């Protein structure tokens, strides 16, 4: 009986596969001969199985792409390079160390000019400067409110629910 109590005390560690190697032999020998301890061990094993089954989710509702997409919007992490490794040389001093390569430099300058021309010359109607979002038309069976906060480029269209009649945008 005392032996059974000792064995049952070690059961969780045995199921955790953490029972000391020198104890395993005696433990398993006892189980072979003791029906009662075997039953207790089976119950513990079953309870553990049910516990795991109850606590794990049915599915993983988040995909690798979703995670990566959400993070890609973030800026380059500050901690990626330890501060001790950061180059503290001021940018104007770095300019001196640059070697001048005429071919890429001229090509870059020409490209910049071309880009500038394409942006500012009136080649087409699409080059006219307009605000961030233009609402051309709205048809709605409900009342609506248009709100443009000045400090952000966001435009909000708030469809007022039919019965409530008051907008919730602040």
């Amino acid at each position: 009986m005392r032996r059974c109590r000792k064995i049952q005390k070690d059961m969780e560690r045995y199921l955790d596969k953490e029972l000391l190697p020198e104890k395993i032999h005696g433990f398993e020998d006892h189980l072979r001969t003791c029906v009662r301890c075997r039953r207790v061990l089976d119950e513990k094993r079953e309870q553990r199985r049910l516990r795991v089954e109850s606590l794990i989710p049915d599915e993983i509702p988040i995909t690798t792409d979703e995670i990566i997409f959400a993070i890609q919007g973030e800026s380059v992490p500050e901690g990626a390079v330890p501060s001790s490794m950061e180059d503290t040389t001021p940018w104007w001093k770095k300019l001196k160390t640059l070697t001048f390569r005429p071919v890429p430099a001229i090509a870059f300058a020409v490209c910049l000019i071309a880009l500038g021309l394409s942006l500012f010359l009136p080649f087409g109607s699409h080059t006219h400067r307009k605000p961030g979002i233009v609402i051309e038309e709205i048809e709605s069976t409900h009342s609506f409110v248009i709100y443009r906060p000045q400090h952000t480029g966001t435009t909000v269209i708030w469809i007022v629910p039919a019965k409530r009649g008051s907008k919730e945008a602040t």
Partner: protein
Amino acid sequence: MAKKAAERAIHHRENGNDAERFRKIVDDFRSRIYHTAYGIVQDPDDAKDITQEVFLKIYEKMGTFKGEASFSTWIYRITVNACIDMLRKKKTGPQVSLREGIHYGARETGSPLIVGRPDSPFDATYQTELRAKIKEAFLKLSPEHRTALVLREIEGLSYQEIANSLECSVGTVMSRLHYARKRMQKLLAPVWGDSR
């Protein structure tokens, strides 16, 4: 060591390998992190938020990983901290409310558990209620006890790995596991009968 890791990170960035490396990490650890988070907080939305947050932290700190612990230990540590933060922030009590007065007949029948898959709608209902009861009991444990139980029983980590992830001693892990199981046993005694 840190310098080497940082150099490696810069090397990866320069070679455009960071994105691929990070994708590999997400692929490898997505389910483990979600399972751990869900196991501890028992809320799918919170677990999803935690998973996202953990990957953001991994992404931010990838260059500062010192290699003193194994990479997975480091990730479990971040996950567990995020879960505990979330639980502390929300200070949740039990999330599962069940009808009172459900008797499972465990004591009466002397057969404490229904073993195996449900065969009939009645069994299916029983299993669902049993799961809910287990969940309810689990939510009564403290975050630290839940964490130890999840890392051991769901994630299958050894005592030493759990100790490394939680930054505590193996003795503490064993005591937390012992307490968590004892309390679960006590809370669920009416469900599966205390045969000991």
